């Protein structure tokens, strides 16, 4: 084949025979492993692919998955969902966010329920729709409730860039952007109370696809170098994931601990520099961001730089936004699941009290969460 067609980008990376071929290669290579390995797929997109295509069933017992925290909706603590709800209930506010947020329950209810009570909540495909909404409603404040990892942060930055340049007076931002390497580091560094030792469960990482398109593979350099954990940045299609897993297994049998890119058709070492510059212009790190299920993670959150404080909804509405932290239900074991200490079926409320329609813990909240994926695709592991 000499030229690429659009359908090749779908079909060739979902081809059943190629998936089976990699399954054979991995099974053969895994015989040479000295001990079983646990691979954390950091991103919820990978969790979804792994469960949807039943990849665990294709792999030998010595290759296991740990489902990581890379689901921006799942990791949002309840108090921040409550912020969205409180803002939405203001009569002068139009709350705009991405569709993923619709059903996420806070302590007062979800944004869908706020809308049923008369709040003006709009779920948009693209953040840029805020500009049209703001221009059509000059007497209202449009608050963009921004969520996501490095993948979606630059889109929020482009929106703010346009708000500043076009001098749009009635758009504000509630920022909930978080970053991936810091939470990966936290997962390795954190002392686990159950086993009273450092978390040695994670042997390697399957690196996120589209976070890496923006940030570049360079953000994972510390993991092979400082922790001896291989990282293979892989695409989201099932062939990509299987090839990525194969590359990790080969590193172990060859005694290598390296950063490699499987997803070379879009990921480079440096990433999208324009996007990174936009993020740097408008955002700065916050020293602590509380992750649902994991607690405070140092340097893992972003906020608007001080020179853009007038666009910050958390400052503009600070008198009405609740500040108390809200813990998850005592029976929820999402923290253990995210650390690789437990699998969803080990939770006593999984599939009974806690379901996608009535989620109790973070991993059930979004379709990308580990519990939600297990519930949807059956207990495949």
């Amino acid at each position, binding site marked *: 084949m000499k030229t690429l067609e659009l359908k090749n980008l779908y079909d060739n990376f979902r081809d059943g025979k190629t998936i089976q*071929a990699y399954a054979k290669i991995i099974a053969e290579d895994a015989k040479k492993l000295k001990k079983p390995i646990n691979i954390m797929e950091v991103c919820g997109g990978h969790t979804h692919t792994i469960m949807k295509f039943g990849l665990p069933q294709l792999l030998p017992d010595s290759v296991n998955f740990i489902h990581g925290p890379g689901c921006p909706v799942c990791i949002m603590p309840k108090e921040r969902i409550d912020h969205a709800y409180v803002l939405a209930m203001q009569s002068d506010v139009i709350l705009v966010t991405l569709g993923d947020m619709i059903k996420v329950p806070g302590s007062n209810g979800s944004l869908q329920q706020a809308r049923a009570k008369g709040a003006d909540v709009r779920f948009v495909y693209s953040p840029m729709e805020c500009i049209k909404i703001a221009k059509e409603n000059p007497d209202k404040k449009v608050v963009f409730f921004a969520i996501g990892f490095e993948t979606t942060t630059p889109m929020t930055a482009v929106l703010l860039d346009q708000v500043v340049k076009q001098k749009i007076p009635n758009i504000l931002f509630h920022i909930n952007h978080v970053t991936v390497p810091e939470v990966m580091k936290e997962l390795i560094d954190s002392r686990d109370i159950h086993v009273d030792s450092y978390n040695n469960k994670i042997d390697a990482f399957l690196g996120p696809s589209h976070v890496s*398109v923006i940030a570049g593979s360079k953000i994972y350099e510390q993991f092979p170098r400082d922790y001896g954990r291989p990282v293979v940045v892989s695409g989201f299609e099932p062939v990509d994931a299987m090839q990525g897993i194969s590359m990790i297994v080969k590193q172990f049998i060859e005694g290598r601990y390296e950063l490699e890119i499987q997803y070379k058709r879009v990921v480079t070492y440096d990433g999208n520099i324009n996007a990174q510059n936009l993020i740097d212009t408008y955002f700065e790190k916050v020293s602590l961001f509380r992750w649902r299920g994991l607690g405070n993670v140092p340097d893992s959150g972003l906020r608007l730089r001080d020179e853009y404080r007038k666009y910050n909804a958390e400052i503009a509405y600070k008198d009405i936004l609740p500040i108390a932290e809200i813990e998850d239900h005592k029976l929820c074991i999402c923290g253990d699941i995210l650390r690789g200490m437990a699998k969803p079926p080990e939770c006593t409320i999984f599939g009974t009290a806690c379901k996608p329609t009535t989620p109790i813990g973070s991993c059930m909240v979004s379709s990308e969460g580990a519990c939600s994926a297990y519930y949807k695709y059956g207990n495949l592991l």
Partner: protein
Amino acid sequence: MCLSIPSKVVKVSEDKTMCTVDTMGVQRDANLMMMGEDDVQVGDYVLLHIGFIMNKIDEDEALASIETYREILELMDEEERKRAISDDDNCENR
């Protein structure tokens, strides 16, 4: 949340801030403000995410991956063919 859609650029606006992409027969507009001014041309393959072009898809790398998969399948077919012949040769019930 982070899923993106491979698409092909069919039109770039005059001010180069927007483009029209084709995603398996469906056309839609996409924002180019995360890309450098002349980075994206008509005919390029790109990744689309929440209305933005995130990056170009490198055709050579995509083709190289597809070629690797073709070679792996060919090698497996060859091994299976050899195994079938060898099984047949060693068959005691012949």
